């Protein structure tokens, strides 16, 4: 970039300034307060704008306020410049308002303002030079010590300052070195502190947090412990309540048990007293039996048993004898009858087995021939039916019609039934007669007598002709009648007769058919019947022979012949067989009677034995009855014919004596029990029961129910007493422990620390600690990133700086130094001289060379840190102010050489510098007296 012209309408002390800048070196000289530094600032403002305050910066302290024109006129400036590629621009800024107006115009082209914006600001310097204002100030704007940064110091310090300046430029565009930044960050970290440093905020917060957390832990433990104690208290209270309830239950149960015992005792005493009274009465009643011979009871009982048994046996023997006596008489009568019957059956035939079998075979054959006899009967029925049918045919009146002509006679009768011709002519005759009569009457009525007569005659003629036709023309009916009279003489040929014959012809046909069928049956069965009759006759003969051989008597036969002989024969055979069967029955009856007689003989013998037995049993019973009577008399009991009743009376007496003795023993026992139950002191028992009822009622029990309950024995009552005692002890123990625990809990609960308070405090400590830790972390990260960034930038920048400086230094020193080495760590610069093999630290070279190296390093940095590759003009503000004349000349010569590729704007109060530049003869250099330039007027900015 080469600056061409600066126009200032108003800026600080400058007013209406137009300054044309030479391509290489422009020396702007003037007295102090002439506005030389203001020109430099105006160039910067043109390229980068001016800060006008704003967020975080007060307007009144801003550069915009500081550089307002002194005369309060217009406030603005413009700068024209050219880039290396030949493009030329003019940037104009109007600064009257805080919101400045900037415009960049490509000379010979269009407005490019928007292309040169960075955010809201128009910054041609940033865009075209590639460096921001800070870098520009640090590298291109040099004051008095820019060329000798550390003039008062010794060489090593000056070198360090140079390195530091380069570091500052490389690290933050001159604001601070990375090392300084890291130092500040470390200071900040120190302010935050560490967790181990208890006096630092972080350490204090951490320590406090740990303390609070420990307290919190203890508080929670105490809370939990107290809660457990509360639970224990609740458990103890529950235990005490349960024990008390158990004790109460036991006591209630014990009282109920005792009441039940008392109730039972009182009830038992009443019962015993009642029983004693009853027993006393009984013993008094039974006292007479005290000496009853109870020892004979067994014998008497045995006697009674034997006697009863013997009486039963004797009675049974007597009863059987009584029963047998009648039976014996009946048997004797029956035996007499049997003897008579046997005598009567004495002539009955005797049949052997063969006869019996033959008789049965013949009976079977006779039964078989019964079918033939039925066949003969059917044959007789058929003959009778045939005769009947013939009578029915005669009754039809059509017997004159032969059976074979019935079918042919039917059509003839139908034809004959059609009637004669005259029947068809009669309507004609009647009609003609009527019409003729009417017509004749009409003619006569009208006075046409002749016509009427003619008409009447004509009608009569017609009638006569029709009568003749009827008489002589007969037809097929007539012929049929004639044939019928020939075939069936005697047939009624009148119309009524024909009609009747026609109606009866189907019946006639049926009757003829039945008759023929019956006659056919009779004819066919006749021969078969004759064969069967012969066979039956032979069978009958055999039957009669059997009857004769046995012999049995057969009734005399009836007289029958012809077809009826078969039935008769069979009847005869049956009679013979019946006689045989009767003989058989008589033989069987005789055997039966003989068997019955033998049985009756045995029964007669048994009856006699029964009579003897009855007599023996009666004697034995009498003997035992006498002995029993003796015992009864010994016991003072009256004699009783009924042995059972006598024995019962004896046994009753014995039983009464035993009851007496038992009642006496029981009475003694009851009296002892009554004595044991405290009979005689019922009042004490009542008092005791009342006391128990009261206690039970007090414990919620029901004395009435308890008194009726099951009484408990002493063991159970003792167990209840023990259980109640234990429950009482347990309840007392639990209550005692609970009481102590409750008091302790009151103290514990009141002294419990508030967890919420501690949590709050913990949270507060955590807030502080986390804030500090976050600060530390951010600071650490910033340190790490700055360190890393600086290292990378240094490594990248150092060789480029070395190359840039080496090129220019060789040119400026005419090859005296041809190589430069820049240490990337600390930017320590070493030079290589032609005369020496090693690298010379910059602090060991001459002061002039060192200043040159310093300036070249700044220029190199503008190239390295800038992105555009555009040469940056050097704005030198009286850098040689305090230099001696020789050194000033040397420096001016160096600048003249440097201006070959770097434009220099040098302000100075020393006219000699201007003179030296003017006298150098180098083209593109100019010396301008600022006092003269500012007298011109009328500069327009936009």
């Amino acid at each position, binding site marked *: 970039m080469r600056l061409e012209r600066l126009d200032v309408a108003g800026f600080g002390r400058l007013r209406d300034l137009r300054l044309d800048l030479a391509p290489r070196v422009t020396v702007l000289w003037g007295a102090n307060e002439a506005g030389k530094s203001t020109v430099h600032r105006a160039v910067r403002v043109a390229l980068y704008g001016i800060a006008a305050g*704003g967020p975080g910066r007060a307007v009144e302290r801003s550069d915009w306020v500081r550089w307002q024109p002194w005369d309060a006129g217009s406030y603005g400036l413009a700068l024209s410049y050219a880039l290396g590629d030949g493009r030329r621009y003019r940037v104009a800024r109007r600064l009257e308002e805080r919101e400045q107006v900037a415009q960049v115009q490509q000379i010979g082209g269009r407005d490019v303002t928007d292309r040169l914006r960075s955010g809201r600001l128009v910054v041609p310097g940033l865009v075209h030079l590639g460096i921001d204002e800070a870098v520009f100030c640090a590298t291109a704007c040099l004051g008095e010590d820019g060329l000798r940064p550390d003039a008062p110091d010794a060489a090593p310090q000056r070198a360090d300052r140079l390195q530091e300046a380069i570091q500052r430029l490389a690290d933050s565009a001159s604001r601070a070195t990375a090392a300084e930044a890291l130092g500040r960050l470390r200071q900040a970290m120190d302010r935050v502190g560490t967790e181990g440093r208890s006096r630092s905020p972080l350490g204090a917060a951490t320590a406090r947090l740990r303390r609070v957390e420990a307290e919190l832990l203890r508080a929670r433990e105490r809370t939990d412990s107290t809660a457990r104690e509360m639970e224990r208290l609740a458990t103890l209270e529950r235990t005490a309540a349960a024990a008390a309830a158990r004790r109460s239950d036991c006591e209630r149960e014990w009282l109920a048990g005792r009441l039940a015992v008392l109730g039972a005792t009182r009830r038992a005493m009443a019962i015993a007293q009642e029983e004693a009274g009853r027993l006393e009465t009984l013993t008094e009643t039974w006292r007479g039996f005290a000496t009853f011979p109870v020892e004979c009871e067994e014998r008497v009982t045995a006697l009674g048993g034997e006697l009863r048994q013997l009486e039963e046996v004797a009675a049974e023997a007597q009863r059987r004898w009584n029963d047998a006596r009648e039976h014996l008489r009946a048997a004797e009568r029956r035996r007499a009858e049997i003897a008579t019957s046997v005598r009567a059956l004495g002539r009955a035939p005797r049949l052997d087995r063969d006869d019996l079998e033959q008789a049965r075979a013949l009976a079977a054959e006779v039964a078989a021939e019964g079918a033939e006899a039925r066949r003969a009967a059917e044959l007789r029925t058929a003959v009778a039916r045939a005769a009947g049918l013939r009578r029915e045919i005669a009754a039809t009146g059509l017997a004159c019609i032969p059976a074979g002509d019935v079918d042919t006679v039917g059509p003839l009768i139908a034809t004959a039934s059609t009637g004669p011709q005259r029947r068809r002519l009669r309507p004609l005759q009647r009609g003609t007669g009527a019409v003729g009569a009417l017509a004749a009457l009409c003619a006569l009525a009208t006075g046409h007598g002749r016509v009427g007569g003619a008409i009447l005659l004509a009608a009569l003629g017609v009638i006569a002709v029709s009568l003749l036709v009827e008489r002589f023309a007969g037809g097929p009916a007539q012929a049929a009648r004639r044939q019928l009279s020939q075939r069936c003489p005697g047939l009624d040929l009148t119309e009524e007769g024909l009609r009747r014959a026609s109606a009866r012809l189907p019946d006639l046909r049926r009757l003829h058919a039945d008759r023929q069928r019956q006659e056919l049956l009779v004819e066919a069965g006749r021969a078969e019947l004759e064969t069967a009759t012969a066979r039956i006759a032979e069978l009958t003969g055999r039957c009669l022979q059997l009857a004769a051989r046995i012999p049995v008597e057969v009734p005399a036969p009836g007289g029958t012949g012809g077809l009826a002989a078969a039935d008769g024969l069979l009847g005869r055979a049956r009679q013979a067989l019946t006689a045989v069967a009767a003989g058989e029955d008589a033989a069987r009856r005789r055997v039966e009677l003989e068997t019955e007689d033998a049985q009756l003989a045995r029964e007669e013998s048994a009856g006699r034995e029964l009579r003897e037995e009855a007599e023996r049993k009666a004697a034995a019973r009498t003997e035992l009855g006498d002995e029993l009577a003796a015992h009864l008399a010994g016991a003072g009991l009256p004699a009783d014919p009924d042995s059972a009743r006598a024995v019962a009376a004896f046994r009753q007496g014995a039983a009464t004596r035993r009851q007496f003795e038992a009642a006496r023993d029981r009475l003694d026992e009851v009296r002892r029990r009554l004595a044991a139950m405290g009979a005689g002191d019922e009042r004490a028992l009542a008092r005791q029961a009342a006391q128990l009822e009261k206690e039970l009622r007090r414990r919620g029990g029901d004395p009435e129910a308890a008194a009726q309950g099951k009484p408990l024995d002493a063991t159970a009552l003792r167990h209840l007493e023990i259980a109640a005692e234990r429950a009482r002890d347990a309840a007392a123990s639990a209550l005692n422990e609970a009481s102590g625990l409750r008091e302790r809990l009151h103290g514990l609960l009141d002294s419990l620390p508030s967890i919420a308070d501690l949590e709050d405090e913990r949270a507060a400590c955590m807030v502080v600690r986390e804030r500090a830790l976050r600060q530390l972390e951010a600071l650490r990260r910033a340190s790490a990133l700055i360190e890393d960034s600086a290292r990378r930038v240094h490594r990248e920048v150092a060789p480029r700086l070395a190359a840039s400086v080496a090129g220019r230094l060789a040119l400026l020193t005419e090859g005296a130094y041809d190589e430069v080495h820049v240490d990337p760590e600390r930017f320590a610069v070493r030079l290589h001289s032609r005369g020496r093999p090693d690298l010379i630290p910059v602090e060991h070279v001459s002061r002039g060379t060192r200043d040159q190296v310093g300036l070249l390093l700044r220029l190199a940095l503008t190239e390295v840190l800038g992105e555009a590759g555009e040469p940056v003009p050097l704005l030198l503000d009286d850098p040689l102010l305090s230099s001696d004349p020789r050194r000033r000349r040397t420096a001016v010569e160096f600048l003249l050489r440097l201006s070959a590729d770097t434009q220099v704007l040098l302000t100075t109060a020393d006219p000699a510098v201007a003179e030296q530049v003017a006298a150098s003869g180098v083209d593109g250099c100019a010396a301008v007296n600022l006092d003269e330039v500012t007298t011109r007027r009328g500069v327009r900015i936009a």
Partner: protein
Amino acid sequence: MPFRLLHVSDLHLDRAFAGVGCFGEVARRRREGLRDALRRAGEAARQTGCDAVTIGGDLYEHEHAGLDTGRFLVDLFASWQPMRVFLAPGNHDALLPGSLYERMRWPANVHLFTGATLEPAPLADGLSLWGLAHRDPAWSGDPLEGPEVGSGVHLALFHGAELGGRPPGKSLHGPFQAERIAGRGFAAALCGHYHRRRVDPVARLLYPGSPEPLTFDEEGGRGPVVVEVSERGVVEYQPLTLNRWTAVQHDCDLAGSGSSGEAVERARGAAREALAGLAPERAMLRLSLRGEVDPDLALDLPLVEAAVADATGAATVRLRDLTSPAIDIAAAAADRTARGAFTRAVLAAIDREDDPRERALLGDTLRYGLQALGGGEVGLR
């Protein structure tokens, strides 16, 4: 059947208030204030003739609640007799082993819902209250899951997050859809969880909100709601505003502040403006400091908070430093120095980072680094 009850939720007894800048005595006052809120709720229930008090969860905070709080609740509920008290534990007071619900012996008028699903408790003839308990602080089941409840009038009491009106960032405990309230046959759902009051008769949904503001963003009306069920089962709501504490959020522009003193002065002014008309001793103020400030301006926030609290008498003052240093970050990132490399590296890291905390940390890193590289003192924030 007409029945009147008072519904309250989200008391958060024994809450730690360090998160909102309350420590020590102020925090204790705040906790006592929560107990007072419950006492006032009971008194309001008595005065309005309520038959019962329903508490929709987060009655206390399990992590911080001590036995003293348990005793307080037992005594207070016992003093409310014959009013009945229905408790439906929420996520902060889940029915856990060792919780106050299990440790304390509750008076007879207290009914604690213990089931993980809605269970009925009779209120009056034909009127039932169904409730459930969070048995796990991380429970995320649907409280309204299940079949229709049948005939009669039924109210539901539970702690849950209605998905349609869920505030941004609010945790999801017991999520449910408002449509399911009518779907299951409930005449109203008496809920807890959201700290902002929501009375929605159309959706049959009631969130009374926390009776006292617990965080700075809990502004607006809040507190118990009287619920009246008529003979015909119509439910009417009467919100009560009983809170004594107020939460205020306010911005303070520090742009152009050249010194920390000036910044403190501006903060005081903004705080006075925010607290005008309020009782400062029961106010929680959060000031958000905004604007671009001088990069060299080092603000010590605790000191500023103390100064503002002193100036206003506010119970709690919390500052949020949302200022940004007046540094041309883009320009810094554009230069080729180590500062530029540092700036680019941090900006790239910020771009890569999704975690807001990490991004904030990187922002501080950039701020501190640029301050250090700018040659000034590093001001900690």
